[in-house]
């Protein structure tokens, strides 16, 4: 998984198109996401370049984990664009979680444009033995 790769990989940003129509115009993007699982938890890594820690909104409702990242367009305010290869926009993505996640203990960290969500699993339940009378 962590082996060194020397090839150059070009990854285009995926535009979000499937969500409900928006009330404002403008593009949104789907953050590239890795999900890995250990015995205790599920870890979600998302690339959201340009999104500040304070601009990430994580909501959990009916087992749907919703992540929204707002970029700050302020720095672009008065600049004149002279050449461009990538577009900018907010990020949004939804995931459906299974019940095995302890929803009260989800943790989030943001570092250099990468969001890390830690979703702890519910400790395995002891199989209940049922006594027959």
């Amino acid at each position, binding site marked *: *998984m*962590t082996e*060194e*790769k*020397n090839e*150059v*990989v*070009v*990854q285009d*940003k995926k535009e979000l198109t499937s969500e409900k129509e928006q009330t*404002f*115009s*403008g*593009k949104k993007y789907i953050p*590239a*996401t*890795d*999900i*890995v*699982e*250990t*015995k205790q938890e*599920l*870890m979600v*890594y998302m*690339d*959201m*370049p*340009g*999104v*500040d820690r304070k601009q990430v909104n994580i909501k959990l409702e009916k087992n749907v984990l919703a992540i929204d990242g707002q*970029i700050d*367009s*302020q720095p*672009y*305010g*008065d*600049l*004149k*664009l*002279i*050449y*461009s*290869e*990538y*577009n*900018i*926009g*907010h990020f949004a993505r939804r995931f459906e979680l299974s019940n095995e996640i302890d929803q009260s203990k989800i943790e989030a960290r943001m*570092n*250099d*444009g*990468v969001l890390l969500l830690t979703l702890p699993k519910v400790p395995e339940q002891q199989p209940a033995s049922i006594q027959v009378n």
Partner: protein
Amino acid sequence: MYASFANTFDRLVKVQNAVEASRRSDYFGQSTTHRSAHPFINLFQDGDNTILTAEVPGLEKEEINLEIKDNLLRLSGKRKVNFPEKASARRLERRNFNFDRTVKLPVQVDAAQINAEYKNGILKVVLPRAESDKPKAIEIN
């Protein structure tokens, strides 16, 4: 409050539209590289400064190298995606990558005044135009 919200969206949409419109720009003239070498860059102008931005999330600052020679700016670095040991993958979309790209700027840059920052996964390089490259007004006697 409402006005400031509207402005934020407007600005974003304005930038997005400008990006779309600039797709066929010939800013660099004819060059040897494909237009979309990695990493993707945007260039802005702010007075005499050229500002280069690139989206490169999850790098270590020490892994980013910037070099300038004349008007050639070289960006290189690598990203390593790390996971905890004994983790099994469910979905893998993010990539390890190395990048090494040289951008030929159409203006001469004052190498000593270049300022670079890496914040929230965005690399931003402010390149001030060299004094010697600026046009001089000629007085008519």
